[in-house]
């Protein structure tokens, strides 16, 4: 089984710090990491390979520093990786990104061998659109399912998946090739093995594809191939809040203050009244 897993190299939004002086968030100098939500997808891919044999190929469309992210997943046990990088891919929205990824998957099909399964994480921590799996499915006209928690290969070479929606757990059987979006907490990702990572590096298991390799029309990639345009960005407007902070002498006083504040607040008085004594 040949599994392709998509990886995104993202700024670590968890490392963004709050500046108490200015009340704003500091975005500069944030280090990048492999999108944490991609790791359950890598884990699921590795488990399928370990179970039925084959290989896992990680792909990422990104500027060259993203090879660090590919090294990371190679350290988890991914067999090889392809960095898809070119200036003409820069500024891509999800449609243009999915286009390049889909064409790269077709190139893997043609030059490395048939791809049986394409696996993505549920969404990224930096933009969290969850678009890519469906969009790649659309370019390749493949069946796909989101929010997958488990996947097993059946005797007849199909894939059984379990996924969870808001109120339902569903089980599907998919013909391969297919595309999966793996739920955020589906599986605990295995740790990186330093020796595996080192060996992958020595064996140069990351190859780079540029647009010389993919030969895509530049009108379909990057900013030009993106229907959406970011007209502007602003800092998230603050919700007006009262911001009263009480340093109580003890817990009793803190509790009393909270209750008194609720009773003095025209928005909270009535709900508190109702929950304690019912009626109005």
């Amino acid at each position, binding site marked *: 089984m040949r599994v392709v897993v998509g990886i995104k190299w993202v700024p670590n*939004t968890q490392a*963004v710090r*709050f500046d108490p002086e200015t*009340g704003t*968030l500091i*975005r500069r100098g944030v280090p990048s990491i492999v999108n944490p939500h991609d790791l359950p997808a890598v884990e699921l891919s590795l488990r399928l390979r370990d179970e039925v044999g084959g290989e896992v190929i990680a792909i990422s469309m990104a500027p060259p520093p993203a090879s660090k992210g590919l090294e990371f997943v190679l350290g988890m046990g991914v067999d090889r990786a392809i960095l898809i990088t070119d200036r003409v891919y820069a500024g891509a929205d*999800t*449609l243009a990104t999915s286009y390049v990824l889909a064409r790269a998957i077709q190139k893997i099909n043609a030059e490395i061998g048939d791809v049986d399964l394409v696996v993505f994480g549920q969404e990224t921590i*930096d933009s*969290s*659109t*969850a*678009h890519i799996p469906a*969009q790649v499915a659309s370019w390749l006209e493949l*069946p*796909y*399912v*989101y*929010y997958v928690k488990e996947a097993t290969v059946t005797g007849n070479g199909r894939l059984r998946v379990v996924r969870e*929606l*808001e109120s*339902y757990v569903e*089980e*599907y*059987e998919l*013909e391969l090739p297919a595309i999966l*979006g793996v739920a955020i907490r589906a599986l605990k990702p295995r740790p990186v093995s330093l020796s595996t990572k080192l060996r992958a590096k020595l064996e140069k298991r990351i190859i780079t594809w540029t647009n010389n390799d993919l030969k895509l029309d530049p009108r*379909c990639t990057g900013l*030009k191939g993106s*229907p*959406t*345009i970011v007209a502007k960005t602003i800092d*998230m407007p603050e919700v007006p*809040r*009262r*911001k*009263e*902070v*009480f*340093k*109580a002498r003890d*817990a009793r006083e*803190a*509790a*009393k*203050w*909270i*209750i*008194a*504040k*609720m*009773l003095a607040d025209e*928005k*909270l008085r009535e*709900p*508190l*009244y109702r*929950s*304690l*004594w019912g009626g109005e």
Partner: protein
Amino acid sequence: MSFKVECDKLCPEWPCEQPGEFRNVWVIVEAEDGRLSEPSLQMLTPGRRIADKLEEKLVGVLIGYNVSHLAEEVIKYGADEVIVVDSEALKTYHPRVYASAVVDLARRYKPSVIFIAGTKRGREFAPYIANTLKAGITADCTDFDVDPNSRDVLLIRPPFAAILLAFIKTPFRRPQIGTARPNVFPLPARDESRRGEVIFEKVNVTAETKMRLISRKQIARMEVDVEKAEVIVSGGKGIGGPEGFKLLEKLAELLKGTVGGSRKAVDAGWIREDRQVGQTGKSVKPVLYIAVGISGAAQHMIGVREAIRIIAINADPEAPIFNQADYSVIGDYREVIPALIEELEALKIKGPASIKEYIEWLSNLERGEERIKPGAQAI
């Protein structure tokens, strides 16, 4: 004036269409178990506003099987017109099947805008629709507007872990597609007297031959959904373990509310995933949100923007939550919450007459004390 597209500059894999050919605002309305899905009805709220701004019609597109009788309801919730696709081919949901129904209709009717509820299903099939039409899509919008000059719809969303707010438009592609999470917009008021046209359409649905549904089980849930709760007592990393959530549950019960949790609390396994509040969880709109041991990361706070009041209890005097809450106390929840429960139980027994005692105590405190100061300066 809408943008004039030069076809030779466009990706040759995209159909060349002029934005001016597209009209009307669509909301995709789904039905489940014989009822209209509430998240999709909520999308009629921004749909109505944008249709009015564009001076176009708001059209509900009702898709499913045995759904025709629900069409009038969509009108009552604010649509001018409803297009119904009631087909046995849509009996079992498959993302590509649902998407193909919308794509087929959109190719014929050419709507300028499509809004889709960002339920898990919606998030699954909406990008397939957009890509098949080679249209732009913007997920998890928190607001929509119309650019007064270009008449493009502005799709407003919080990228970068909800620290930023981006204004997105698709000036040279139509339809303009946007999704929003459930409860980001309120349900529109239902107007019994509202009338509108109902159009029954047949579509070319692509049957799904590559996947099949094996089983579908409803998840049994006893408690109130966090989205519906008036009071939420929510715990974060600072709770430290599952037993702490028992305390929060007790407080929630007393306040006739429910418990929620941050991503970290869910990751740690202290509370179930369906109770998660925040960017990768749910958006909630309680009257009161009590954040306990929650630091106040932007990804969490995006989910509670619509809370009317926030009370924060946190032991870390540097926690950013204090700058984003209405009433905060610095302290160990293991002491504050039991005290709060005891005080509330005592108040419950004493009865409403004792309220003034608290108010007097508070005004004395506020007159004589310097310990209550706004925001970060108190730290």
